[in-house]
């Protein structure tokens, strides 16, 4: 892991006591969004002003045994992270990755010991994401957002003993700055 991944934003999120994640079909993982920071009033903020900026989604092995998760660098793991945005009227929109071309592509997993994490960087860039919830440049947007980490029960997952299932982070409000 790169050092910044465990820097101030993650500590702030943990210190803020984010609610436990919901679990759909697997009890041994949790997922949460780590915002860029918090405003003075405690609102979660995601700052994506510069193309190099991103926020994190942390997938944690909450079980007692080691598990395997697909890396994003292979087709089995690339699109496992998605987001759900809830409108004020309750309508839920999904934000997923755009399909991409694969040339070198082999099943590639990462071993996650108990209590450890897979940390995913998200920039909501238009090259990667379909319909990301980005405000216009120079503006901000308040969204209700949750992360979904879902990994299919494929033959490769069975062969490699890679985790499959679906976990969802708490639905929280975030102000996205662009």
């Amino acid at each position, binding site marked *: 892991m790169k050092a910044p991944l465990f820097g101030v934003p993650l500590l702030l999120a943990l210190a803020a006591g984010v609610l436990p994640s919901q679990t759909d079909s697997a009890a041994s993982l949790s997922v949460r969004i780590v915002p860029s920071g918090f405003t003075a009033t405690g609102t979660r903020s995601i700052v994506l002003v510069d193309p190099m900026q991103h926020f994190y989604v942390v997938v944690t092995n909450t079980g007692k045994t080691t598990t395997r998760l697909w890396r994003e660098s292979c087709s089995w793991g690339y699109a496992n992270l998605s987001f759900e945005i809830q409108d004020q009227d309750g309508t839920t929109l999904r934000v997923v990755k755009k399909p991409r071309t*694969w*040339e*070198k592509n082999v099943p590639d997993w990462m071993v996650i010991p108990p209590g450890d994490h897979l940390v995913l960087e998200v920039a909501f860039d238009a090259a990667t994401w379909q319909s990301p919830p980005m405000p216009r440049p120079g503006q901000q947007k308040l969204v209700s957002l949750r992360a979904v980490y879902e990994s299919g029960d494929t033959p490769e997952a069975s062969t490699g003993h890679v985790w499959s299932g679906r976990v969802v982070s708490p639905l929280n409000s975030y102000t996205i700055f662009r």
Partner: protein
Amino acid sequence: MHVFTIDRGPHKGKHIHVTLYQKTEDGLKIKITHNVPTAAGKQIQWVQTVSSNNSFARDCKMMTRVDPFGIGGPVNTVSIPAVPGLCKADDLLPFYWTVADLAAGRGPGLSDEPSISPPAKGRLWTNFVTALTEVTGKTVHHLVAISWGYDRMADGSVRENALYRATMVEMRAHGHALKTMYPDYKYT
């Protein structure tokens, strides 16, 4: 299935064996083994180039590239000094398996599962040249090379190419891509 024999040099008679060559929903799956021993002071390495008319070829302005080389977040992460720009590889060496791949237990065979979304019209063609090489220092000596690939049609279908020993024309493009992207090595 398909065996391609090394026809000259100290490894004459040894071979690579394509044990799986199968269409998938959106591409192709290949697995290759070999029976070439590693001599002292040398390495056996796979080298693969890809030619295509897909977006990577346009974005990278290279019809033939050492695989992988393209644009895309967690996949293409390493800038190549000889080919600066948006397109990136997965390490600074011309070999298919990275040092991290090998440390993770990849090899000694090669596997790949390329795929692509169907085009709005016409076809997207993708053709690979996969070579088993013997590396001595900075010299990459090709032992045997094959050509394979597939077309993705606008109707969603996949048409796999025949598997055959790479032609001279394909080897020229393969060698040119290697020299362009990794000029520190000598390719024979």
